């Protein structure tokens, strides 16, 4: 895996992939996509990085421990946000009823809880898919 063309192309493309992935994650409540699709695109960027620059490069960028933390943390974040609704006397995963500001429809910071939920899911999915790829590709 020591291909100059691949490396150069990857260096140009990866930032675009990551920005697009983040865009899809953050605009989940406004346009098609959301935490899951965006997370997969983000992970795609990581995987391309690993393919072009080798596994050790990815390992130093996203260590196993960090990936595990993100995987658990993403869903814990989701559950925690859901619990806010429960604690404020509404229901689990309540949105406006739990006091989350809904904002102006169509703006980035709107939709209350949905925006935050997507963020957690996006991080979790990106970490999980990268881990999946790493486990499958692992050298013996």
């Amino acid at each position, binding site marked *: 895996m020591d291909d100059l063309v691949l490396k150069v192309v990857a260096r140009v493309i990866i930032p675009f992939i990551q920005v697009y992935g983040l865009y*899809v994650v953050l605009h989940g409540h406004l346009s*098609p*996509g*959301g935490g*899951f*699709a965006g997370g*997969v*695109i983000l*992970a*795609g960027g990581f*995987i391309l990085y690993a393919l072009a620059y080798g596994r050790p490069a990815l390992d130093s960028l996203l260590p196993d421990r960090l990936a595990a933390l993100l995987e658990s943390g993403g869903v814990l974040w989701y559950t925690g946000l859901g619990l806010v609704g429960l604690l404020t006397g509404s229901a689990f995963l309540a949105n406006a009823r739990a006091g989350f500001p809904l904002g102006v429809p169509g703006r980035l910071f709107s939709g209350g809880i949905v925006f935050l939920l997507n963020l957690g899911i996006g991080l979790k999915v990106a970490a999980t*898919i990268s881990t*999946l*790829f790493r486990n*499958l*590709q692992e050298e013996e």
Partner: protein
Amino acid sequence: MLTVRSLLLALLLLSALAVARTRDLLSAAVIFAGYSLIMATVWQQLRAPDIALAEAAIGAGITSLLFIVTVARTGRYEK
């Protein structure tokens, strides 16, 4: 409109059959990636952009990649 849809569905079927026919697992994985891409277009035609995006990222991207990585480690041809 109708022709586009029937064409896409026919392509879908053709690629599924091609996966069944080929004995080369690597090309089966690649054809499957194409299958997913056509599927994503079909989702778009059925006004399901969320699924289209997910299918393109997952089916054509990640799943095929995982298949190829596995094929690379386990042998390319079906007996």
